């Protein structure tokens, strides 16, 4: 799924470069009514717009608008996006001034900003729709292993299945075995002795621990070793996430300003 998300973000970045450049071109046409303006030549403008678009995208990347795990469209992304667009426009004006000559139209700046913002929002919306369609076909799923077959485990599995998100529980293990064969269609594959095998076979990327607290240290260390994200259900130790760093660090989710797409699905906004 990481590869899929990375590909999606890469395509979106390229697309955004195209729409930013497109916004420059359209703004010129709308404001000046022609591409054959003699006082403010289009080719001079396009030259600067090309360089400015590259820097614009770099600013968006720097503002982590395309970061993995970030929602494609949410209040946080939109605010970052608008700020990045202001920086992008400002850079264009400065570049034009230093490289070419005095800028011709103030309204052109407003047009560029408005169109670029609108277009980028649209591409992000489209990417979200495309991802949703692919996920429904089983492409680009983030595969989750749930530890435990207790009620919190049932709750999170049912919630994730019903949320129709790209985060999909695909296997359950329980340290002491379980009489349950499956929960909401997700198979119980045995005890923790199958951990390594299940993680490889099911291409697990996230491990949620809902039970068997006594194995928390072993499971966090295992996730660290295998590069998996580890989440612990609030019923075990408050709402906490152990970050996947070289050192284990506890991060209380309820105090963080930002939440990833997945954290919002689990814990709400």
């Amino acid at each position: 799924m990481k590869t899929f998300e990375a590909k999606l973000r890469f395509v979106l970045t390229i697309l955004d470069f195209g729409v930013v450049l497109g916004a420059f071109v359209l703004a010129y046409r709308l404001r000046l009514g022609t591409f054959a303006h003699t006082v403010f030549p289009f080719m001079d403008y396009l030259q600067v717009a090309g360089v400015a678009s590259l820097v614009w995208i770099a600013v968006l990347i720097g503002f982590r608008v395309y970061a993995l795990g970030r929602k494609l469209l949410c209040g946080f992304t939109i605010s970052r996006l608008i700020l990045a667009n202001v920086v992008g426009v400002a850079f264009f004006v400065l570049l034009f001034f230093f490289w070419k000559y005095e800028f011709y139209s103030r309204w052109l700046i407003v047009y560029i900003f408005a169109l670029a913002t609108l277009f980028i929002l649209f591409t992000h919306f489209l990417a979200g729709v495309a991802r949703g369609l692919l996920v429904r076909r089983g492409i680009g799923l983030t595969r989750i292993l749930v530890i435990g077959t207790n009620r919190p485990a049932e709750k999170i599995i049912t919630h994730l299945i019903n949320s129709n998100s790209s985060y999909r529980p695909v296997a359950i293990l329980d340290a002491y075995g379980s009489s349950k064969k499956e929960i909401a269609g997700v198979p119980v594959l045995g005890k923790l002795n199958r951990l390594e095998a299940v993680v490889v076979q099911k291409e697990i990327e996230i491990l949620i621990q809902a039970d068997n607290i006594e194995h928390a240290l072993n499971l966090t260390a295992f996730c660290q070793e295998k590069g998996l994200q580890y989440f612990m259900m609030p019923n075990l130790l408050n709402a906490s996430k152990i970050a996947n760093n070289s050192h284990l660090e506890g991060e209380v989710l309820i105090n963080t300003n930002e939440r990833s797409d997945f954290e919002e699905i689990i814990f709400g906004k």
Partner: protein
Amino acid sequence: MKCLILAGGFATRLWPFTEKRAKPLLPIAGKPLLSHTLDFLPKDIPIIISTNQAYARDFAEWASGFPERKIEIFVEDAHSDDAKPGALAGLSLAIRKLKLESNLLLIAGDNYFGFDLRKFIGVYEGKPLLACHDIGDKDEARKFGVVVEKRGKVVEFQEKPENPKSTLVSAGCYVLPARLLPSVVEYAREYADNLGGLFEYFLRNGEDVRAFSFREAWFDIGSFGAYLQAHKFLLGSKQILGQGITRDNTQLRGAIVIGDNVKLKDCTIIDSVVLDDCVLEDCVIKNSVIDQGCHLRGLDLDYKIIRAGVRISV
């Protein structure tokens, strides 16, 4: 008489301690559990260890350490817990495949027996014999096969009963007469995993089943709690220290086993096992097992098993 040791389980409940080793090969008081059993077996009795594909090589390696003993490894087909045939089915398979026709001393490989098995064999009179131990607690007795006996004769056998009639439980050690081995094979066809049920079956068929009660220690290493109990019982306040250990400002208290090449700095270790090549710094470890190659710093652990190779620094 031959001795058949049942060691076909995958010990999934003791994860991660049994992730890469069979339960009968878990180290207790400095040596594998099975080696303790071997100490009490007659020197000349042929031993068959019935195990699965996953652990066959480990048992063969263990057996190679006793060249003076006749030890044979019998391997079931099972590669995983799901494919495990069951204890009785494993026994039946061994009887059929190895064409066993002599009296059989049957031992659960994951049990520690404090009594001399030579004495147990000595009381065998051609009738099915089972070793039993009074655990003194009816709640605990529910987890085992409960034996009701009168003057050494078993009058009733209850396999994991809701309401145990006594606190005398079957201790995973039996002698089966050669003449009854075909009945074992027949019974196993229907009840693959009910070893205790075999004795109910014998009683129903009018067999005279004998009981051998013992007072010595007995541990069924089915859980981490039982493992720790056995560890503490066998060591008391003794400490077994391996070679190449580095100790710096470290206290060792109670029953302790420290493996080879372990580095300890600013630690307190109480009633625990730290296996080979571990590096522990600023840790308080109580009632725990730290498997091989762990690097731990700044941890307080109580009643934990830490998986081999874990690196945690807090």
